[in-house]
Structures are given as structure tokens and as C-alpha cells.
């Protein structure tokens, strides 16, 4: 089964939860894979000594415009939903802005003058690692300046396969990259902080997940700050609260130094094991 770990914004402890869940399951000898889908800023690898196994480039096709064949009809620019064709006919300027292009192919379809061909552009890489314990970790990494990580994320999830439990450390936010990641998950674990900001982000994530018919549960991180707004919301909406983390100085220190709290604290190991067991027993078989 696939479990996505997500949060409305970055820095709420999503990576902390994903890496520790992975560590606990691999520590028990279960078949588990971690996929870092936060392609803009992947960092799961920082927590595991790992050896690189393979690397593949993910490309898409972007248009190349032959100005000599162009009849200045403007169709390509009109058809492009992403403002990626810069078109000023009066100045005889037509230009593809490659890092805005999503490789959808609409412009070449729209052109009736055979003025558009396509060329491959590398969007990012999918890299497979094996941790020192022998467990697979797959990283999606977007190229600097590229804007659309979706293809890279999809390729990374595919690379991870279907074996055992696959943990998807999801991109923050609720836009396309988030949706494409959780879409492939059987269960979504949302990490939030008990503050008004945390609540408003959480609400957005929950609403998005509901339109997608996804099962979800919540972990409240930094439970020692903030108010009871998140808890009240979960009760009203009948969303399971799976756990509460008091993000004390020992956790903060070990995290900032790139260590895993589940290597250092038996209580936290038990905590994450309990959450994993609950999700797997209620929502999957562990082996798909």
C-alpha cells in the first residue's frame, strides 16, 4: 500500500514524520520504500547513509518554432494555457519560454503551418538509493529553474513499484504536485501544527482530499504550542487524530543535525510504529 505524508505548507514536520515512519518499518524488517516527492527541495536522503543505485533523467517535449515558416496567426500562443509562447506579431517576435512550458503539445497541434517541431528538455532526475540497512529510497529532483515537477514525481513513484509499504513524502501545498502525489496513495497522513495558520492549511488539504475521495488522518506536531482549534476541527469533521508530537528540544536537535529520533528514543519508535500499524491494519494489507 502507498501512504502519502503531506502538509499544507513546508516546515510542519512532514519530512520528520515520513523519514521516521520509514525508519521504524525498515528497522522491523518490513518491506518498505521511501519516495521523496518534494522535488523542489528533496531532503529525505540527509537522514540515511545510502548508496546510489541508478539515475534516470525525466524529459518532456518543448516546441521549437521555425520563424521562417510562421504565418503569424497566433494560434499557438492562444492555445497555450501556460503563457509559454511569447508572441508579439507587430514586432515579429515569437519565442518559447521553456521553463514555463508544460510539454502539453497543444501548440504544435494548433499550428497549421508546420512551423513547430519539438525537442526533448530534461526536467529533472529520479534517483534510486539503497540505505545502509538495504532499503530502497527514491528521490525526485526537479532541475533548477524548471517549474513543473509533476512528471518527475510520477516517474519516481513508478520507479518505487508496488512492493510492500511505499511512503510518499509529498510536496507541500494543495496544487498540482500535491494532487498528483496523493492521487497515487491509498492513505494520506496529514501533518499540521495547532495554530490558526496550521488549521487553515489543514482545512484546505482536507477539502482537496475529500473531492478526491481519499482517506486521511492527522498528526499534530509541536503540540506544545498553539491552541485547540485543530483538535476541535478534527472532532467536528470526524477526522481521525492519529497522534500528537510534543516537538521538544531533543527532537528538534536530532532533526536539525540530520538524525532520526526513532534511532534515539524508544518512546518515539513506539509512537511511529503504532501509527504505521494502525494505518496498515485499517487501510491496507502491507503487501498490496
Amino acid at each position, binding site marked *: 500500500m502507498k501512504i502519502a505524508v503531506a502538509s499544507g505548507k513546508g516546515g510542519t514536520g512532514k519530512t520528520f514524520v515520513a523519514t521516521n515512519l520509514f525508519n521504524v518499518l525498515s528497522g522491523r524488517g518490513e518491506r518498505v520504500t521511501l519516495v521523496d516527492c518534494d522535488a523542489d527541495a528533496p531532503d529525505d536522503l540527509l537522514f540515511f547513509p545510502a548508496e546510489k543505485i541508478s539515475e534516470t533523467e525525466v524529459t518532456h517535449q518543448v516546441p521549437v518554432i521555425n520563424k521562417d515558416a510562421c504565418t503569424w496567426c497566433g494560434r499557438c500562443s492562444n492555445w497555450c494555457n501556460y503563457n509559454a509562447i511569447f508572441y508579439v506579431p507587430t514586432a515579429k517576435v515569437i519565442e518559447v519560454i521553456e521553463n*514555463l512550458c508544460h510539454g502539453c503539445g497543444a501548440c504544435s497541434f494548433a499550428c497549421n503551418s508546420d512551423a513547430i517541431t519539438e525537442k526533448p528538455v530534461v526536467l529533472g532526475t529520479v534517483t534510486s538509493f539503497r540505505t545502509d540497512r538495504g532499503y530502497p529510497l527514491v528521490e525526485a529532483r526537479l532541475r533548477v529553474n524548471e517549474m513543473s515537477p509533476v512528471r518527475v514525481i510520477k516517474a519516481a513513484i513508478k520507479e518505487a513499484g508496488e512492493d510492500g509499504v511505499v511512503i510518499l513524502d509529498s510536496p507541500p501545498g494543495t496544487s498540482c504536485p500535491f494532487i498528483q502525489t496523493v492521487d497515487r496513495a491509498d492513505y494520506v497522513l496529514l501533518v499540521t501544527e495547532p495554530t490558526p495558520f496550521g488549521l487553515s492549511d489543514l482545512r484546505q488539504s482536507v477539502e482537496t482530499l475529500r473531492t478526491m475521495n481519499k482517506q486521511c488522518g492527522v498528526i499534530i506536531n509541536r503540540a506544545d504550542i498553539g491552541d485547540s482549534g485543530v483538535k476541535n476541527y478534527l472532532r467536528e469533521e470526524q477526522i481521525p487524530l492519529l497522534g500528537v508530537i510534543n516537538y521538544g528540544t531533543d527532537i528538534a536537535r536530532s532533526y536539525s543535525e540530520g538524525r532520526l529520533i526513532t534511532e534515539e528514543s524508544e518512546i518515539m519508535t513506539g509512537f511511529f510504529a503504532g501509527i504505521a500499524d494502525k494505518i496498515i491494519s485499517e487501510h491496507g494489507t502491507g503487501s498490496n
Partner: protein
Amino acid sequence: MKVAITSTGQSLDSNLDQRFGRCAFFVIYDTETGGVEILPNPNKDAEEGAGPASVQMVASKDVKKIISGEFGVKIKSLLDSLKIQMVVYKEPEKTVKSVIDMLNK
């Protein structure tokens, strides 16, 4: 010559909008005739590419100069290729009218 000024509102008393690609309105001022045209910016809420799309729109009005608080990095080369001059004017408190007055000095 036509000049585009980014504006926070629909009148000449509105302030200069500091963002080029995502400004609320463009005021197009013709220095020869004194004519003024005010256009809402359709790219204001575009997820991506608001800058280039706004350049495209302004360029289609035959503008030769743009005045705004800041321009994205992608914009400069596009404006260069169109020979449009870019004027960075970081004065959020100034009204569009006062910018026009400056042009007429």
C-alpha cells in the same frame, strides 16, 4: 510615444502598482496626444508566466516604455528584444498622475 504605467486602481489618482506582471491595471499614456487608456490586467492572477503575458499585452498596444516598481528576471530580455524601455520606479506612494506629470516635464 506610448508609455505603460502599472496602477493599483482604475483612475489616475490610484497609486503606482509595484508589481509589473501582476499589477491590477495598466495605464497607457500617449505623450504626444495626452490620451489615456486604462486596461485591467488579465494576467493578474495567472499561476505562472504573468510577466511575459503582460509584456505581450502591453507590446500589442505599441508601448515603448514601461514604468513599474519591479520587473521579474525573465522580463528584461523580452523587453530588450522588443526594444521597450523598462523604468524601475520604486515609489509605492506616488500616484499615476504624478508619474505622468514627470513624463511631461
